């Protein structure tokens, strides 16, 4: 029998299994979750910082590379221009020199040597259109002016007819500290495109270089360069212009959150930047977080599983123990708990089984003692109750024999002794009947009857006796007769015994009040039965029952009366029990006693 079956329903959160399970899971899960969270947060921060640092390093590397490329270009041009013999070279040699430079360095789209009047002396431009344009567009004075200021000439980035970012630089060709010509270079910034490709991070990452205005010079997405698009983030552009590098997370075009690193390129006002959607950049951190979470969940699930089985293993023998005890308490005295564990619970089960064994032994002993006691009491009663009438009968029979043996029989005396004999026989017969009524009660024959009718019969039977004893009988019935199914003759016996007892308890007269009423059995109604009941009480004003006698008044052969058999109240209780009722007695010595019968209705 389990808990539910036993009728004692325990709430799920009060159950031992639940408590053990919850405690086990909490013991495992909480530290795991806390440790995991700390680990994940630390690792995530570390990964993010690493990514940001790496991107910044890449951006700085880009700037160094671009700077180096541009410096190289400038240096090459400068060294070529300052190479004294270039002035003295023949045109073909000059062409050889500058064509070799263009051939060797992709950076140079075109090189042109001009004199200070803007006349093209040599050019790598095969169509000469561009070279001639430089010589005639009024640029030469501007270039020469910049030379006088001690700085080389450099244009901003512009987009060529081929939609490529270009930059022009010029260096003075000097002879004896006098500028005699210009070496003009068109630098193809496409040379740095490979760099941005190399620096591109991840699949969705972007690497690019932009000028002061934000125009893309190089971009891993070439379309942005070819379509002359601009980088829009003003904050970064300003930082670049201030010569600052750094990293940040910002919202780029299209609302994509980007993790970006940027660095300025030399003194050009250009910026090199690397950016990657945070969704991609921090994917390793997210993956790690997800994996740790997975690990934690799996661990908790496994721990829960283990905790469940382990708790069940603990709880199962406890449940068996509880169930066994319940069955034992409900009378299955031969039920034994099997020992399923070798721990304390197993030992407890074993002890329980031993206790049960010993209890049965004690019970048997008790039964035997009770039987012996009953036999002894029976013998005593019989010896007392039967021997007395028998002695009387023997004496009276001897007297009767003597009377009959006389010649002149005194009929009156014979009849008298005969009457005594008959009375004693009747007394013995009544004793045996009462005894049988207890020892072997007849089968119940319940019938629907109005209880007050049975009481009325009893009262009628005892009216004479009560009058004789000066006892007044009062009846307090409810207006409507109360019907119920009872064994009429036996219930009459109950009422008769209680009425006789009450009359006998008032030898100097008094009052016996017999009442009948219904009760609903609700809390506070005073009935010990659940459900509706009929309450019948016999309240006398006799001498009452002593305190020490009160618990034993329903015991067999217990009587405080000198001529009492000690069976009357025992019979009453037995019959009431057979009707699934209860009888209780209240008494105040010297004031009387109240016997109350509760009979279940229905």
């Amino acid at each position, binding site marked *: 029998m389990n808990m539910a079956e036993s009728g004692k329903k325990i709430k799920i959160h009060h159950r031992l299994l639940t408590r053990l399970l919850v405690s086990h899971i909490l013991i495992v899960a909480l530290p795991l979750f806390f440790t995991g969270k700390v680990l994940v947060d630390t690792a995530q921060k570390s990964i993010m910082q690493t990514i940001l640092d790496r991107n910044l390093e890449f951006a700085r590397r880009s700037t160094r590379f671009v700077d180096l490329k541009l410096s190289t270009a400038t240096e090459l041009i400068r060294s070529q221009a300052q190479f004294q013999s270039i002035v003295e070279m023949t045109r073909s*040699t000059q062409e050889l020199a500058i064509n070799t430079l263009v051939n060797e360095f992709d950076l140079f789209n075109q090189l042109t040597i001009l004199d200070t009047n803007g006349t093209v002396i040599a050019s790598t431009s095969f169509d000469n259109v561009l070279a001639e344009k430089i010589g005639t567009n009024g640029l030469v004075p501007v270039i020469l002016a910049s030379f006088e200021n001690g700085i080389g000439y450099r244009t901003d980035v512009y987009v060529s007819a081929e939609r490529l970012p270009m930059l022009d630089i010029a260096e003075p060709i000097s002879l004896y500290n006098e500028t005699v010509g210009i070496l003009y270079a068109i630098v193809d910034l496409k040379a740095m495109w490979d760099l941005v490709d190399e620096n591109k991070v991840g699949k969705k990452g972007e690497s690019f270089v932009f000028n002061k205005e934000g125009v893309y010079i190089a971009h891993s997405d070439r379309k942005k360069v070819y379509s002359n698009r601009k980088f829009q983030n003003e904050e970064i552009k300003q930082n670049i212009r201030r010569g600052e590098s750094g990293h940040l997370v910002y919202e780029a075009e299209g609302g994509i959150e980007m993790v970006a690193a940027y660095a300025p390129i030399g003194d050009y006002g250009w910026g090199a930047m690397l950016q990657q959607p945070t969704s991609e950049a921090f994917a390793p951190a997210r993956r790690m977080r997800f994996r740790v979470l997975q690990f934690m969940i799996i661990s908790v699930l496994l721990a829960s599983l283990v905790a469940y089985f382990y708790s069940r293993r603990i709880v199962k023998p406890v449940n068996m123990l509880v169930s066994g005890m319940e069955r034992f308490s409900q009378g299955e005295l031969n039920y034994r708990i099997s020992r399923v564990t070798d721990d304390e619970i197993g030992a407890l089960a074993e002890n329980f089984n031993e206790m049960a064994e010993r209890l049965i032994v004690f019970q048997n002993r008790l039964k035997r003692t009770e039987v012996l006691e009953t036999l002894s009491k029976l013998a005593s009663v019989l010896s007392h109750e039967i021997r007395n009438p028998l002695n009387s009968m023997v004496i009276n029979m001897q007297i009767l024999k003597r009377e009959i043996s006389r010649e002149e029989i005194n009929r009156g005396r014979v009849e008298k002794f005969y009457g005594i004999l008959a009375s004693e026989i009747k007394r013995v017969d009544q004793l045996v009947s009462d005894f049988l009524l207890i020892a072997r009660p007849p089968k119940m024959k319940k019938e629907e009857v109005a209880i007050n009718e049975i009481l009325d019969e009893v009262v009628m039977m005892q009216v004479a006796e009560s009058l004789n004893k000066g006892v007044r009988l009062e009846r307090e019935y409810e207006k409507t007769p109360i019907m119920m199914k009872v064994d009429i003759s036996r219930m009459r016996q109950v009422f008769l015994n209680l009425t006789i007892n009450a009359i006998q308890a008032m030898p100097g007269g008094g009052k016996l009040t017999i009442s009948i009423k219904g009760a609903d059995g609700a809390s506070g109604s005073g009935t010990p039965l659940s459900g509706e009941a009929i309450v019948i009480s016999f309240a006398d004003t006799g001498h009452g029952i002593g305190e020490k006698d009160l618990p034993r008044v329903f015991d067999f052969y217990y009587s405080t009366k000198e001529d009492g058999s000690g069976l009357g109240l025992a019979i009453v209780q037995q019959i009431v029990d057979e009707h699934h009722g209860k009888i209780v007695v209240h008494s105040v010595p010297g004031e009387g006693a109240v016997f109350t019968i509760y009979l279940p209705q229905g």
Partner: protein
Amino acid sequence: MDKIVSQVYSLQKETPGSFLKFCVILLVLIVMDGQLTGQDRASQFQRQVIVGDLVGRTDLRDLRIETSQGSFPIMSHGNGKPFVVFSRSSNEVVLQFYSLRGLTDANPNTIIIRLYETERALISALILDEVDFAVLENEVSAIEASKSNSHFLPLPVQMTPNTVKLVAYNNRHPLLRSSKIRKAISYGIDHGYIIKKIILGGKANIARGPFDDDSPLYNSGMKSYRYNPKMALQILAEEGWRDSNRDGVLDKNGEPFVLNLYYQKGLRIDVAVSRIIKINLIKLGIDVRPKPLAKSEMNDRLASGAFEAVLLDHTFENNIESLSDFLSEHGAMNYTGYRSATVENYIRFYHEATDPKRKKTLIKGIQSVVNEDQPVSFLYFKWLTHDLVNVEKFQNIRYTEGPRRGSIRPFEEWIFRQTDGR
């Protein structure tokens, strides 16, 4: 319709004397216009393939287009062409297909051929999705374009066998009439460096003659003109060329050795090759002046002989006719004006001969003569070109079976991935 008529009218004006043809085209267009209404017509004009090419590589006048009904010259007015020239300018021609069997709404019906000045400009157009198809000779350019625009898939295409890059000399020009001078120039050009520097990865063979070394007609006995500037200088000196005024340029009889080298405008390879030739020959004292030309200008110059040297691609077929065409004084493509009695004899002997071995020997003999005379400097046989196709937009681009397996299908057989096209 008015626009169509005006276009055709302008065409008619440009080609006086073909009024009858104009009427036929007009009739076709009227019929077409009757069949197409409203949105249909709009969608018809949207189903276009834009082909990018270079002015230096393509002369629209002699451009032919492959269709499923055969190859047709664009500009001629022959009958049976499945298309009309809808519009034309110096750098763009629009072709409208009208009578191709099996042409559906999923196929292009308009081909726009757009010419760009430079390869870089063409690459820019590819990257910005302004062009659907282009052929790039430079592998680096092809990779760059496809890397920058994922819509494009570079399809390496094997060059037609014996397609050789050469410097064709005007053999009639006083400067280049002597085979010694031509030999000196051949010695002065660093073929190996060109391949190494220009054709990245060296995906080309040095050329000794018109046939590549895997051709059955290849003459392995030909002299190799390996880069040898000393030899070149020696020959030039023997021919009387000296730098008498020490200006770095050779001169003879007061005339400097200036060589104008024409090349196809905008081709990165040709620009680079021209520059290397210039650098190589400046070192000898030859003042090479590379000059870019549109294909049409180049054709004009070749036809008129108004050139000194030209950087060309030429394909020799494995037969005597191809050789004869280029080398014989009667050849239709003998731009160089090369004349050799021996070559003429060999060609004649070839036609008279029946023995295949002898024929082969005669062809090899011609190669030996050409190798000795150097009417042209053979530079290299390039292995691959690169077709770039917008595979995001089109499918059914190449033949997948049959003898033409792997080659590009006619444009009108391509299928739009999205039926509404561009």
